[in-house]
């Protein structure tokens, strides 16, 4: 589907500040899209708008053909969308296993849990544990994990309910070279199965993974294209890449 996630004239104002300004943004199914831009460009706000944490001031958002702007985030999540926060938002007193179980449960609050359902859940949790490489830590309390492992758990939580669209907010922020590589491998392994929208500052990650890159500046679209095109774009260079690490 070409317009798997689409925003139309999306704007968000905070008091006097315009975080996102009349943005038209489209992502195709199973694409890996990177969103980059200087601080304050509106990248995180865009993610928050998409998953319903924030309500748009104006504009529409469509997901898989359905209008989602204005819907509460738990409803949007159950439609098959997930987000990994930049600062890990985990359940600190629960074990890693229970954290992932919560994600796999996908907001289900029924009273009766049959054996088949439980089996399915166990399988899902174990799959994700393998994907994020935390099998050994399965019974550690999430709050006791090191930062790098918490970032991995964070992505695991986002993967828990088999999302169709995965939003990643700086998935490699604060990670070492090795840890970043591991995350990159993880995201690469999802190619073709999940649509990914990734906000990132690390250019190596962006260039290595993205099919298309969207560059935002002051909440507006500055440039969009393949990694090569973006690398060559003079506007982008001037605003962003010349300052990048």
């Amino acid at each position: 589907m070409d317009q798997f996630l689409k925003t139309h004239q999306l704007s968000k104002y905070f008091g006097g500040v315009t975080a996102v300004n009349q943005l038209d943004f489209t992502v195709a199914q199973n694409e890996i899209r990177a969103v980059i831009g200087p601080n304050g460009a509106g990248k995180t706000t865009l993610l928050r708008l998409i998953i319903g944490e924030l309500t748009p001031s104006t504009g529409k958002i469509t997901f898989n053909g359905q209008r989602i702007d204005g819907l509460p985030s738990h409803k949007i999540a159950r439609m098959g969308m997930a987000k990994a926060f930049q600062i890990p938002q985990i359940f600190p007193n629960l074990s890693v296993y229970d954290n992932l179980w919560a994600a796999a449960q996908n907001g289900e609050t029924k009273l009766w849990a049959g054996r088949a359902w439980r089996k399915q859940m166990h399988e899902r949790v174990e799959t994700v544990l393998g994907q994020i490489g935390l099998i050994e830590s399965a019974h550690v309390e999430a709050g006791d994990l090191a930062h790098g492992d918490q970032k991995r758990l964070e992505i695991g939580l986002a993967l828990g309910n088999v999302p169709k669209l995965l939003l990643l907010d700086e998935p490699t922020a604060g990670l070492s070279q090795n840890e970043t590589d591991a995350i990159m491998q993880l995201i690469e392994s999802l190619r073709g199965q999940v649509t990914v929208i990734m906000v990132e500052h690390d250019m190596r990650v962006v260039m290595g993974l993205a099919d298309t890159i969207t560059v935002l500046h002051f909440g507006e679209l500055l440039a969009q294209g393949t990694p090569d095109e973006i690398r060559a774009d003079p506007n982008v260079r001037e605003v962003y890449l010349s300052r990048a690490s």
Partner: protein
Amino acid sequence: MNLSWWRVGGAVFGAIGLALLPYVLPQFWIFFVAQIMVWIILAQSFNLLFGYTGLLSLGQSAYFTLGAYGLALLLRHAELGLPLLLIGGVLAGLIGAAIIGYLAVRVQGHGFIIVTAVPTVLLILLGQDQSWLTGGDNGINLTPPKLFGLYSFFKPLTSYYVVLPFFLLMMIFIAWLIRTPLGQAFRLVRENEERASILGYNVLRLKYIAFVIAGGIAGLAGALDALITAYVVPNSASWTISADAIIWTLVGGAGTLLGPIVGTALLLLLREFLSDIWAYGYPLLLGITLLLIVRFAPNGIIGELKSWTSS
């Protein structure tokens, strides 16, 4: 989540022990244990909200009183058997919580705590105002029906064997509830509301459901209390009574099943022993204990034990 055989075994053992306890206790203590069980139910009501769902409610005493009066008024004005009277009490608590909870759970942050205390004040004022109905500050003395037409509630044994099955039922209910997907979702609200929401959980609805269930549990405690003490009074809704339940739960360990049991039993027994030696000593000690627990052992007795054994 599997139920280990130890736990089930322990629970069965405990239940049998409780059932046989009256054979070895003098009359006074039989009634006392029955009373403890009633207060444990109130503590569990608070525990469900705070220990599991992370909602600090100062107002469970309101639903306790609603349950008590639900039973009392049904007793006065209708010819109903014991089971229906108790159901009436539970319903009173459920309905009260359903109405108040609808507004209360929408209040974010600390405002929620105060909002839960408000119905306690309103209820006491209402009780004082409509004293024709409620007996005002003097309350109402009840004449509970005889159990099976034979056993009078003025005998401690009757009270004990009526409270016991409901106590056990309540514990089984809560133990079951927290293992359901719904019950497990409550914990997520406590741990990280924002995250839970993004994972697809309707946090507001979860809070509401927890609130209503807790109200029903508190209502049951109130109804049972009315039955065994044969007395209801509006002042039982005072938030300081909620505070007692809170302290018992915290000392025992919030967020655990055993915590409220241990905490309530321990502290009430302590109070009883101290009342002979040093009447005021207990509340003073309680205050200081609370300060110590909060500072050094916030997980309570059971919570700290759990940390010990797992590390």
